[in-house]
Protein backbone atom coordinates (compact mmCIF):
# COMPACT_ATOMS: atom_id res chain seq x y z
CA UNK A 1 0.00 0.00 0.00
CA UNK A 2 2.69 2.42 -0.94
CA UNK A 3 1.05 5.57 -2.20
CA UNK A 4 1.52 9.28 -2.47
CA UNK A 5 1.20 9.79 1.26
CA UNK A 6 4.92 9.46 1.87
CA UNK A 7 6.89 12.67 2.17
CA UNK A 8 8.87 13.43 -0.97
CA UNK A 9 12.23 12.58 0.53
CA UNK A 10 11.05 9.20 1.83
CA UNK A 11 9.33 8.41 -1.45
CA UNK A 12 12.49 9.16 -3.41
CA UNK A 13 14.51 6.97 -1.08
CA UNK A 14 12.02 4.10 -1.54
CA UNK A 15 11.98 4.43 -5.28
CA UNK A 16 15.76 4.46 -5.45
CA UNK A 17 15.95 1.37 -3.31
CA UNK A 18 13.25 -0.48 -5.25
CA UNK A 19 15.03 0.23 -8.50
CA UNK A 20 18.00 -1.84 -7.37
CA UNK A 21 16.44 -4.38 -4.97
CA UNK A 22 14.66 -7.26 -6.63
CA UNK A 23 13.33 -8.95 -3.42
CA UNK A 24 11.79 -5.70 -2.18
CA UNK A 25 10.24 -5.11 -5.60
CA UNK A 26 8.70 -8.58 -5.48
CA UNK A 27 7.47 -8.00 -1.92
CA UNK A 28 5.87 -4.74 -2.97
CA UNK A 29 4.21 -6.37 -5.99
CA UNK A 30 2.88 -9.15 -3.76
CA UNK A 31 1.61 -6.60 -1.26
CA UNK A 32 -0.04 -4.65 -4.02
CA UNK A 33 -1.68 -7.80 -5.39
CA UNK A 34 -2.97 -8.75 -1.96
CA UNK A 35 -4.33 -5.23 -1.41
CA UNK A 36 -6.23 -5.51 -4.69
CA UNK A 37 -7.73 -8.80 -3.55
CA UNK A 38 -8.84 -7.29 -0.24
CA UNK A 39 -10.35 -4.39 -2.12
CA UNK A 40 -12.20 -6.79 -4.42
CA UNK A 41 -13.48 -8.75 -1.42
CA UNK A 42 -14.74 -5.58 0.25
CA UNK A 43 -16.33 -4.38 -2.98
CA UNK A 44 -18.09 -7.70 -3.52
CA UNK A 45 -20.22 -7.11 -0.44
CA UNK A 46 -23.91 -7.19 -1.28
CA UNK A 47 -25.49 -3.76 -1.39
CA UNK A 48 -29.07 -3.08 -0.30
CA UNK A 49 -31.31 -1.31 -2.79
CA UNK A 50 -30.53 2.37 -2.28
CA UNK A 51 -32.80 3.85 -4.94
CA UNK A 52 -35.41 5.02 -2.46
CA UNK A 53 -32.78 6.58 -0.18
CA UNK A 54 -31.63 9.10 -2.78
CA UNK A 55 -35.22 10.08 -3.52
CA UNK A 56 -36.09 10.39 0.18
CA UNK A 57 -32.96 12.39 0.84
CA UNK A 58 -33.74 14.82 -1.93
CA UNK A 59 -37.29 15.21 -0.65
CA UNK A 60 -36.02 15.84 2.87
CA UNK A 61 -33.44 18.39 1.83
CA UNK A 62 -35.47 20.16 -0.82
CA UNK A 63 -39.17 19.82 -0.06
CA UNK A 64 -41.65 21.90 -2.02
CA UNK A 65 -42.06 24.24 0.92
CA UNK A 66 -38.33 24.99 0.76
CA UNK A 67 -37.89 24.01 4.39
CA UNK A 68 -36.20 20.70 5.27
CA UNK A 69 -38.77 18.04 6.07
CA UNK A 70 -38.54 15.25 8.58
CA UNK A 71 -36.93 12.00 7.53
CA UNK A 72 -39.29 9.13 6.81
CA UNK A 73 -38.52 6.65 9.55
CA UNK A 74 -39.67 3.18 10.30
CA UNK A 75 -41.70 2.58 13.48
CA UNK A 76 -38.93 0.54 15.05
CA UNK A 77 -36.51 3.43 14.72
CA UNK A 78 -39.05 5.89 16.12
CA UNK A 79 -39.58 3.61 19.12
CA UNK A 80 -35.82 3.25 19.61
CA UNK A 81 -35.34 7.01 19.48
CA UNK A 82 -38.36 8.20 21.39
CA UNK A 83 -39.39 5.10 23.35
CA UNK A 84 -37.83 6.23 26.62
CA UNK A 85 -39.22 9.72 26.26
CA UNK A 86 -42.70 8.42 25.57
CA UNK A 87 -42.45 6.05 28.52
CA UNK A 88 -41.42 8.84 30.88
CA UNK A 89 -44.16 11.13 29.54
CA UNK A 90 -46.78 8.40 30.03
CA UNK A 91 -45.56 7.77 33.59
CA UNK A 92 -45.70 11.48 34.39
CA UNK A 93 -49.20 11.80 32.95
CA UNK A 94 -50.30 8.78 34.98
CA UNK A 95 -48.75 10.26 38.10
CA UNK A 96 -50.48 13.61 37.56
CA UNK A 97 -53.80 11.84 37.13
CA UNK A 98 -53.34 9.91 40.34
CA UNK A 99 -51.80 12.68 42.43
CA UNK A 100 -55.00 14.45 43.58
CA UNK A 101 -56.41 11.16 44.88
CA UNK A 102 -53.31 10.18 46.78
CA UNK A 103 -53.42 11.60 50.31
CA UNK A 104 -50.31 11.13 52.41
CA UNK A 105 -51.95 12.16 55.68
CA UNK A 106 -53.14 9.42 58.07
CA UNK A 107 -56.45 8.09 56.90
CA UNK A 108 -59.32 6.86 59.03
CA UNK A 109 -60.33 3.28 58.68
CA UNK A 110 -63.26 4.49 56.72
CA UNK A 111 -64.04 4.68 53.09
CA UNK A 112 -64.83 8.17 51.91
CA UNK A 113 -67.24 8.35 49.09
CA UNK A 114 -67.98 11.67 47.62
CA UNK A 115 -71.40 11.39 46.19
CA UNK A 116 -70.79 13.45 43.16
CA UNK A 117 -74.35 13.18 42.05
CA UNK A 118 -75.56 15.10 45.11
CA UNK A 119 -72.84 17.76 44.87
CA UNK A 120 -72.44 20.62 42.51
CA UNK A 121 -69.38 20.14 40.29
CA UNK A 122 -66.92 22.41 42.15
CA UNK A 123 -63.16 22.20 41.79
CA UNK A 124 -61.15 21.18 44.84
CA UNK A 125 -59.58 24.08 46.72
CA UNK A 126 -55.86 23.90 47.12
CA UNK A 127 -54.20 26.02 49.77
CA UNK A 128 -50.46 25.72 50.37
CA UNK A 129 -50.46 22.26 48.88
CA UNK A 130 -53.35 21.02 50.99
CA UNK A 131 -56.46 20.02 49.10
CA UNK A 132 -59.90 20.74 50.53
CA UNK A 133 -63.17 19.26 49.43
CA UNK A 134 -65.34 22.30 48.77
CA UNK A 135 -68.34 22.92 50.91
CA UNK A 136 -71.06 23.58 48.37
CA UNK A 137 -73.00 26.29 50.15
CA UNK A 138 -69.94 28.47 50.93
CA UNK A 139 -69.17 31.64 49.02
CA UNK A 140 -66.71 30.55 46.40
CA UNK A 141 -65.94 34.13 45.41
CA UNK A 142 -64.13 34.81 48.68
CA UNK A 143 -60.38 34.95 48.45
CA UNK A 144 -58.14 32.25 49.92
CA UNK A 145 -55.08 34.49 49.84
CA UNK A 146 -54.78 34.61 53.64
CA UNK A 147 -56.31 31.31 54.60
CA UNK A 148 -57.63 30.35 58.02
CA UNK A 149 -57.33 26.64 58.56
CA UNK A 150 -58.79 25.16 61.71
CA UNK A 151 -58.15 21.62 62.81
CA UNK A 152 -61.23 20.17 64.50
CA UNK A 153 -63.42 17.16 64.97
CA UNK A 154 -66.13 17.22 62.38
CA UNK A 155 -69.24 15.07 62.84
CA UNK A 156 -69.50 12.42 60.16
CA UNK A 157 -73.17 13.28 59.79
CA UNK A 158 -72.35 16.88 58.83
CA UNK A 159 -69.86 15.64 56.30
CA UNK A 160 -72.55 13.41 54.88
CA UNK A 161 -74.72 16.50 54.51
CA UNK A 162 -72.15 18.02 52.17
CA UNK A 163 -71.73 14.83 50.21
CA UNK A 164 -68.78 13.17 51.99
CA UNK A 165 -70.01 9.82 53.19
CA UNK A 166 -67.70 8.00 55.60
CA UNK A 167 -68.55 4.38 56.20
CA UNK A 168 -66.78 2.16 58.76
CA UNK A 169 -64.82 -0.71 57.25
CA UNK A 170 -64.10 -2.48 60.57
CA UNK A 171 -66.23 -3.40 63.52
CA UNK A 172 -63.96 -1.32 65.75
CA UNK A 173 -64.84 1.87 63.94
CA UNK A 174 -68.49 1.57 64.71
CA UNK A 175 -68.22 -0.16 68.08
CA UNK A 176 -70.74 1.30 70.40
CA UNK A 177 -70.81 4.76 68.86
CA UNK A 178 -74.10 5.81 67.41
CA UNK A 179 -73.96 7.01 63.85
CA UNK A 180 -74.74 10.56 64.89
CA UNK A 181 -71.82 10.76 67.38
CA UNK A 182 -69.04 9.60 65.09
CA UNK A 183 -66.59 12.30 64.09
CA UNK A 184 -63.36 12.67 62.14
CA UNK A 185 -60.36 14.92 62.60
CA UNK A 186 -60.28 17.40 59.75
CA UNK A 187 -58.72 20.63 58.60
CA UNK A 188 -61.45 23.09 57.86
CA UNK A 189 -60.75 26.00 55.58
CA UNK A 190 -62.58 29.01 56.90
CA UNK A 191 -63.53 31.78 54.52
CA UNK A 192 -63.30 35.51 55.19
CA UNK A 193 -66.98 35.47 56.08
CA UNK A 194 -66.30 32.99 58.92
CA UNK A 195 -68.06 30.19 57.12
CA UNK A 196 -66.34 26.88 56.24
CA UNK A 197 -65.28 26.74 52.63
CA UNK A 198 -63.66 23.34 52.46
CA UNK A 199 -62.83 20.24 54.47
CA UNK A 200 -59.80 17.99 54.46
CA UNK A 201 -60.32 14.84 56.49
CA UNK A 202 -57.21 13.94 58.48
CA UNK A 203 -58.19 11.06 60.70
CA UNK A 204 -60.89 9.23 62.51
CA UNK A 205 -61.47 8.85 66.26
Amino acid sequence: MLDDELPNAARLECETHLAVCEPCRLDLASLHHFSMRIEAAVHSTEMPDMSSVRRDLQMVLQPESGKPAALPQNPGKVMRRFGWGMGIAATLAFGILLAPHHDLSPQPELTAETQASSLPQTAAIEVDGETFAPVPYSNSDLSTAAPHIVQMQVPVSSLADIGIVLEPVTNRASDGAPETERSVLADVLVGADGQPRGVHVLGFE
Partner: protein
Amino acid sequence: MGNLFALPNIAANAEYLEDTSPLRLVMEYYDREHAPLVRYLCFLNVNPETAKEIVQDCFVKLHEHLEGNGDTTNLRAWLYRVAHNLARNSQLSARARKTDSLTDVTPQKEAASTDLSAEERLLEAERMRLLREGIARLPEAQKQALVLRSQGLKYREIAQALGLSTSTVAENIQRGMDALKKIVA
Protein backbone atom coordinates in the same frame (compact mmCIF):
# COMPACT_ATOMS: atom_id res chain seq x y z
CA MET B 1 -37.52 12.27 -29.78
CA GLY B 2 -35.18 15.12 -28.85
CA ASN B 3 -33.51 17.28 -31.43
CA LEU B 4 -30.06 15.78 -31.89
CA PHE B 5 -28.80 18.91 -33.60
CA ALA B 6 -29.92 21.29 -30.89
CA LEU B 7 -27.17 23.28 -29.23
CA PRO B 8 -26.38 22.24 -25.65
CA ASN B 9 -28.22 24.25 -23.06
CA ILE B 10 -25.28 26.41 -22.08
CA ALA B 11 -27.31 28.55 -19.73
CA ALA B 12 -28.51 25.49 -17.79
CA ASN B 13 -24.99 24.03 -17.62
CA ALA B 14 -23.58 27.34 -16.42
CA GLU B 15 -26.31 27.56 -13.82
CA TYR B 16 -25.43 24.05 -12.60
CA LEU B 17 -21.72 24.82 -12.44
CA GLU B 18 -22.36 28.02 -10.55
CA ASP B 19 -24.63 26.25 -8.09
CA THR B 20 -22.54 25.94 -4.96
CA SER B 21 -25.47 25.31 -2.68
CA PRO B 22 -25.14 22.79 0.15
CA LEU B 23 -27.82 20.68 -1.50
CA ARG B 24 -25.83 20.23 -4.68
CA LEU B 25 -22.69 19.37 -2.73
CA VAL B 26 -24.60 16.88 -0.56
CA MET B 27 -26.08 15.12 -3.59
CA GLU B 28 -22.68 14.96 -5.26
CA TYR B 29 -21.18 13.42 -2.17
CA TYR B 30 -24.13 11.06 -1.92
CA ASP B 31 -23.62 9.78 -5.46
CA ARG B 32 -19.93 9.30 -4.86
CA GLU B 33 -19.88 7.96 -1.32
CA HIS B 34 -23.11 6.18 -0.48
CA ALA B 35 -21.99 2.75 -1.71
CA PRO B 36 -18.60 2.78 0.10
CA LEU B 37 -20.37 4.01 3.23
CA VAL B 38 -22.89 1.17 3.13
CA ARG B 39 -20.10 -1.36 2.58
CA TYR B 40 -18.19 0.04 5.52
CA LEU B 41 -21.30 -0.16 7.72
CA CYS B 42 -21.92 -3.76 6.64
CA PHE B 43 -18.42 -4.65 7.80
CA LEU B 44 -19.24 -3.03 11.13
CA ASN B 45 -22.01 -5.65 11.40
CA VAL B 46 -24.78 -3.14 10.78
CA ASN B 47 -27.69 -4.79 9.00
CA PRO B 48 -28.53 -3.46 5.53
CA GLU B 49 -31.76 -1.71 6.53
CA THR B 50 -30.10 0.12 9.40
CA ALA B 51 -27.17 0.92 7.11
CA LYS B 52 -29.56 2.64 4.71
CA GLU B 53 -31.01 4.72 7.53
CA ILE B 54 -27.57 5.63 8.83
CA VAL B 55 -26.40 6.67 5.38
CA GLN B 56 -29.47 8.86 4.95
CA ASP B 57 -28.88 10.41 8.39
CA CYS B 58 -25.25 11.04 7.46
CA PHE B 59 -26.18 13.12 4.45
CA VAL B 60 -28.88 15.03 6.32
CA LYS B 61 -26.22 15.85 8.91
CA LEU B 62 -23.83 16.81 6.15
CA HIS B 63 -26.42 19.25 4.83
CA GLU B 64 -26.86 20.72 8.31
CA HIS B 65 -23.07 20.90 8.65
CA LEU B 66 -22.75 22.80 5.39
CA GLU B 67 -25.70 25.06 6.13
CA GLY B 68 -24.05 25.91 9.44
CA ASN B 69 -20.82 26.85 7.64
CA GLY B 70 -19.00 23.86 9.11
CA ASP B 71 -15.45 22.93 8.21
CA THR B 72 -15.24 21.62 4.64
CA THR B 73 -11.59 20.68 4.47
CA ASN B 74 -12.19 16.91 4.42
CA LEU B 75 -15.83 16.10 4.03
CA ARG B 76 -15.21 12.49 3.07
CA ALA B 77 -13.46 11.75 6.35
CA TRP B 78 -16.17 13.75 8.13
CA LEU B 79 -18.86 11.56 6.54
CA TYR B 80 -17.15 8.35 7.62
CA ARG B 81 -16.71 9.66 11.14
CA VAL B 82 -20.43 10.48 11.37
CA ALA B 83 -21.36 7.08 9.89
CA HIS B 84 -19.02 5.36 12.31
CA ASN B 85 -20.51 7.17 15.31
CA LEU B 86 -24.09 6.59 14.19
CA ALA B 87 -23.35 2.91 13.69
CA ARG B 88 -21.86 2.68 17.17
CA ASN B 89 -24.89 4.43 18.70
CA SER B 90 -27.23 2.16 16.81
CA GLN B 91 -25.35 -0.94 17.95
CA LEU B 92 -25.23 0.18 21.56
CA SER B 93 -28.97 0.73 21.65
CA ALA B 94 -29.62 -2.53 19.84
CA ARG B 95 -27.13 -4.68 21.70
CA ALA B 96 -29.81 -6.50 23.64
CA ARG B 97 -31.71 -7.50 20.56
CA LYS B 98 -28.67 -8.01 18.39
CA THR B 99 -29.41 -10.33 15.52
CA ASP B 100 -26.73 -9.21 13.12
CA SER B 101 -23.89 -11.57 12.56
CA LEU B 102 -20.75 -11.82 10.57
CA THR B 103 -22.65 -13.67 7.91
CA ASP B 104 -24.48 -10.43 7.14
CA VAL B 105 -21.50 -9.42 5.05
CA THR B 106 -22.98 -11.26 2.12
CA PRO B 107 -21.45 -11.45 -1.30
CA GLN B 108 -22.68 -9.48 -4.23
CA LYS B 109 -23.98 -11.58 -7.08
CA GLU B 110 -21.00 -11.36 -9.38
CA ALA B 111 -21.34 -11.20 -13.10
CA ALA B 112 -20.07 -14.37 -14.67
CA SER B 113 -16.68 -13.80 -16.20
CA THR B 114 -16.22 -15.31 -19.61
CA ASP B 115 -12.48 -15.61 -19.07
CA LEU B 116 -12.77 -18.09 -16.21
CA SER B 117 -14.02 -21.63 -16.29
CA ALA B 118 -16.88 -22.64 -14.01
CA GLU B 119 -14.42 -24.34 -11.69
CA GLU B 120 -12.14 -21.32 -11.56
CA ARG B 121 -15.08 -19.07 -10.84
CA LEU B 122 -16.12 -21.29 -7.98
CA LEU B 123 -12.61 -21.24 -6.58
CA GLU B 124 -12.40 -17.47 -6.92
CA ALA B 125 -15.79 -17.04 -5.24
CA GLU B 126 -14.61 -19.27 -2.41
CA ARG B 127 -11.42 -17.22 -1.99
CA MET B 128 -13.46 -14.03 -1.89
CA ARG B 129 -15.78 -15.52 0.71
CA LEU B 130 -12.81 -16.54 2.85
CA LEU B 131 -11.35 -13.06 2.58
CA ARG B 132 -14.64 -11.39 3.48
CA GLU B 133 -15.07 -13.64 6.49
CA GLY B 134 -11.46 -13.07 7.43
CA ILE B 135 -11.92 -9.31 7.30
CA ALA B 136 -15.12 -9.57 9.33
CA ARG B 137 -13.28 -11.54 12.02
CA LEU B 138 -10.38 -9.14 12.38
CA PRO B 139 -10.13 -7.06 15.56
CA GLU B 140 -12.34 -3.97 15.21
CA ALA B 141 -9.54 -1.43 14.85
CA GLN B 142 -7.78 -3.43 12.13
CA LYS B 143 -11.00 -4.19 10.31
CA GLN B 144 -12.13 -0.56 10.30
CA ALA B 145 -8.80 0.71 9.04
CA LEU B 146 -8.50 -1.98 6.38
CA VAL B 147 -12.03 -1.56 5.04
CA LEU B 148 -11.68 2.21 4.90
CA ARG B 149 -8.38 1.82 3.12
CA SER B 150 -10.02 -0.54 0.64
CA GLN B 151 -12.62 2.16 -0.04
CA GLY B 152 -9.83 4.42 -1.21
CA LEU B 153 -9.39 6.60 1.85
CA LYS B 154 -5.92 7.89 2.54
CA TYR B 155 -4.20 7.21 5.84
CA ARG B 156 -4.81 10.71 7.13
CA GLU B 157 -8.49 10.49 6.15
CA ILE B 158 -8.84 7.19 7.99
CA ALA B 159 -7.10 8.71 10.98
CA GLN B 160 -9.52 11.63 10.93
CA ALA B 161 -12.55 9.37 10.54
CA LEU B 162 -11.57 7.04 13.36
CA GLY B 163 -10.02 9.64 15.64
CA LEU B 164 -6.60 7.96 15.59
CA SER B 165 -3.09 9.00 14.67
CA THR B 166 -1.85 8.28 11.17
CA SER B 167 0.85 5.97 12.51
CA THR B 168 -1.74 3.93 14.46
CA VAL B 169 -3.81 3.59 11.30
CA ALA B 170 -0.77 2.38 9.35
CA GLU B 171 0.02 -0.11 12.06
CA ASN B 172 -3.55 -1.41 12.16
CA ILE B 173 -3.60 -1.84 8.39
CA GLN B 174 -0.31 -3.69 8.43
CA ARG B 175 -1.42 -6.01 11.23
CA GLY B 176 -4.76 -6.61 9.54
CA MET B 177 -3.06 -7.57 6.31
CA ASP B 178 -0.66 -9.90 8.09
CA ALA B 179 -3.57 -11.59 9.86
CA LEU B 180 -5.48 -11.94 6.60
CA LYS B 181 -2.51 -13.46 4.84
CA LYS B 182 -2.43 -16.16 7.48
CA ILE B 183 -6.16 -16.77 7.07
CA VAL B 184 -6.07 -17.20 3.32
CA ALA B 185 -2.67 -18.91 3.13
